[in-house]
């Protein structure tokens, strides 16, 4: 399991994303969007749509309407400008939040498998005191990782139900260090030993379930998904320079339920309007400074239906959207606008979705901290027809 977590951590080699959530030891860090680049381009909405193959973590029931096996991988990178009243700082991050595999079967139902990083921490803050010559740093690393499986079945041509189970593993480190060997100007600090790392390591382990429903009509569709709350077991260790402890203590972290609701309208063929909402029921009893997180996003998609001999752009999809979220850390929120493209790769259904999100996040109150960011997401979607009857292959 440790190796698995290590591999996950490597896969999620990120720089800082949003510092207030990353460094706050309560909560779970910065939540990673469970959506692919298509939905991100529509203002983080579109859970009720089902035109594309692929496992959809926010709504696994959607897979029941698919016919092709699928593979998808998402990559995202963010350029952030973090600032407060006095200083500003640019950062970037880049990581691979997840991979999915979908195995639809109309007769037996559809199976979805995925790995997804559901939240991450990666933040570094350094300060230097010229008076004492001591530089100090604080880092937060790691995140929560999810290994999930879903089963979905279309009990009616218009109605699909999905059940999922998610194994949640977490590895987080909060590190403080102080270097007194380089810049110390004299006195005791000059001869001191550096605090190489005051590290708290928190390993999480838990299981949560989910249920999702998608109702589909020609002109509209709707979806509802709920992921249950769960209590994660925490194993907390402590390390200080050259001194390690045994397991310090075990603790629990309650991960509240998440509810998602989505509506999609198709007033005109090839055009879709979406509206999604979600709520995660954090409250201050789970940690100081925490509050219920909510979000709403809306988007529009124009999906080209060009034939083989049409121009390439007529086969592409064009998307735009926007949204607002009240984050689970008290007084923090973000608003964003998105645009995106869906680029088909050949005629078999492979596609690359690209989204560009521009947003603003901030923490209000007495400690104003804000950031502007540009997030580029790319999802590669591959489909396969193996195992299907020959007549269905194209």
């Amino acid at each position, binding site marked *: 399991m440790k190796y698995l977590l290590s591999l996950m951590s490597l896969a999620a080699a990120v720089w800082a994303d949003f510092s207030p959530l990353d460094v706050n030891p309560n909560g779970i860090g910065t939540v990673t969007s469970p959506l692919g680049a298509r939905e991100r381009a529509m203002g983080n909405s579109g859970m009720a749509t089902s035109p594309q193959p692929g496992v959809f973590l926010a709504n696994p029931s959607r897979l029941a309407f698919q016919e092709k096996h699928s593979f998808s991988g998402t990559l995202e990178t963010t350029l952030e400008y973090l600032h407060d009243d006095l*200083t500003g*700082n640019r950062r970037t991050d*880049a990581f691979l939040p997840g991979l999915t595999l979908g195995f639809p079967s109309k007769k037996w139902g559809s199976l979805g498998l995925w790995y997804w990083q559901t939240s991450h921490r990666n933040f570094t803050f350094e*300060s230097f005191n010229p008076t*004492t010559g001591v530089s100090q740093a604080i880092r937060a690393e790691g995140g929560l990782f999810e290994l999930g499986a879903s089963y979905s079945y279309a009990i009616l041509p218009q109605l699909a139900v999905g059940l999922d189970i998610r194994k949640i593993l977490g590895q987080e480190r909060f590190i403080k260090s*102080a270097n007194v060997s380089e810049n110390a100007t004299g006195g005791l600090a000059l001869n001191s030993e550096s605090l190489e790392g005051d590290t708290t390591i928190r390993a999480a382990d838990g299981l949560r379930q989910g249920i999702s429903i998608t109702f589909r009509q020609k002109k509209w569709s709707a979806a509802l998904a709920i992921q249950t709350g769960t209590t994660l077991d925490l194993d907390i260790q402590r390390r200080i320079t050259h*001194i390690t402890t*045994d397991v310090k203590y075990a603790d629990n972290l309650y991960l509240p339920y998440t509810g998602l609701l989505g509506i999609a309208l198709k007033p005109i063929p090839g055009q879709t309007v979406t509206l999604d909402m979600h709520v995660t029921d954090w409250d201050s009893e789970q940690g100081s400074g925490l509050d219920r997180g909510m979000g709403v996003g809306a988007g529009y998609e124009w999906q080209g239906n060009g034939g083989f001999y049409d121009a390439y752009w007529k086969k592409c999809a064009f998307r735009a959207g926007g949204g607002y979220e009240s984050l689970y850390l008290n007084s923090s929120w973000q608003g964003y606008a998105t645009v995106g493209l869906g680029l088909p790769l050949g005629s078999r259904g492979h596609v690359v979705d690209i989204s560009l999100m521009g947003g603003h996040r901030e923490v209000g109150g007495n400690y104003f901290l804000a950031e502007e960011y540009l997030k580029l997401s790319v999802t590669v979607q591959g489909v396969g027809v193996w195992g299907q009857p020959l007549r269905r292959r194209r």
Partner: protein
Amino acid sequence: MAGCLLSLAGCLSDGPNETGKDFLASQNVILQGMAYEVTLDSVPLENFHTALEEPSHLGDTALMLGQWNGVRSEVRLGFSLTNANLLNQLDSAKKNDSIQVRLSLGMFNWGGYTDSTPNPTQKYLESTLAGRDSLTLIVTTLDAPDSVSEDSYQAAVEIGEPSFLRRKLPVEVLKAQFATAKRTLVETKDTVVLDLKNVYGVSGRDSLFLEKLPHLRQRLIEKRFVRRYLMVRIQPLLPPSTPDSEGVMLRLVGANQGAYYMPALFIGKNENPSTNTSDPDRLDTYTFSGTTVRAATYLAEDLDSLEHSLTVMPQKGLRFQMDRNLLVSKLKSKGLSFSGSGASPFDFNYFVSYAEIQMPIDTAKTWVENNYSLDLGVVSNMDSLADGGPEGLTLLANIPLDSSLPKRSEWKTLWILDANQTLNGNPDTVRFSFEPSPDAATQFLRFALASDTSKDMDTLNLQAGMTREITINAGSRIPLYLSVTSHGHSCDITYRLRMEAKEESRQWLNPETKLPYTDYADLSPRLLAPNKTHVTLRATTSVQRLLNRKTVGQDVFHEFAVKLINKNALQTDSLNIPVNYPILGRVHFPQTNGKILVKLHLLLFPLQQP
């Protein structure tokens, strides 16, 4: 693509600055300010005492022998005679009394000075002879009794090391074990007289003594083995009441490999006086390589130890403990906030980045030979077992010796508690098994480390009432010391955890150059010089371990020691010249209401709260 994006990300990043500092402070997740510098006056030391320093010294290169200034020192040597021809010649010499067994003692060689321009050190050493012309010594030799086979005797020496050669044990224990040894080993005593007239005065080179050991010679003739192991104890024949003006303290060469003047047993015959009139007593040795010093050490004993309990001599140190809770309460009184209970390993909120101890010195009761300066340092033992005395870091277990026991019965998991001292950081298990001999008079105790699968179990044969000490080595691991006492059908095994003392860094950096001081004169805080009222010693690791300790599953016994580092004394008139032979001294730390009060100077970093 990921690589390209990461590269792009790297190009765009302009590194962190202090954006969001206020927010972080509001979250209580940043180091709260910088380090705290705290001075604690009058911190009492707990359970202080002087004790012989660890580890054992089986390979001392310099030895002390004699009695002087209230200190009495004897030398202990281990020899092996492995040359069968040599012993055969000695046997045949029953008819030739000119063949002798002689003891050689080499005086310490300090360099190339001449009588006309003597080294001040040489002149000082001559003064410790107190004008005596000779010194009478008692040479006690122990070898195997007739009933002990060659193999078992070899095992006693090689596996266990002669216990009386260990300096790590208190004097009382050593004496008791010496007495025990006499029950099982044959003792031979000779008296020799050393000629002291020219020992330090022969043009910069040391003198060599050859003294006859007629009783040992007779013993070797009577009981001749192919291999023979001898333990030799050399004591000055001076009454304890001998005044300093009549005492003598010699510095001898110890087990210095390759040194010509190292202690040795010679077997040879006198040269014909008629042909060597200039040196008629010269020994014509049959062989030199037949005698090997396997171990050399000395044991200095403070004759006034009860009266002057806080004495530091070359092989002693001041050991003490500090009350952790008291330390914390004093830090609290300085305004530092602590939370949690003392039971948790990390309930304390500060990392000790620097600590120094200022030790008070009672100048009137402190003396060091020839006004040398002592180079003092602090070492700390950590994570030993809770209920031990100064040397008694022991764990006693009674193992029933019953043939019905499994062949390899597990005794007890021995935690080697410092991860830096273990093989791969893992604790180990010593396994024992018992096997009675056919005559039931002897029990064979077999033992091995569980992890050491490279060799078979070692065997120790025991008789009821017999105590044996064994040392278990495995690779680079710290040896385990076990003492086994047989009761016939059971045995007591005492486990001594030899703690690897952590020596404090004694480096002091120059604030301007950031480079370490190298001149002893700049290191004066840690030097004990004449008329100094205190010494200041770095104790960062020691105090750090005390406050920032790890949990070990059992109570923690933490011990500090202030002692001479590398046994170097320094010539007062030229502080950068260390004296490379042992010297005597007594350091008295003043007490207030039965406590030694020290000053602690600390630099503390606040730790995060998980």
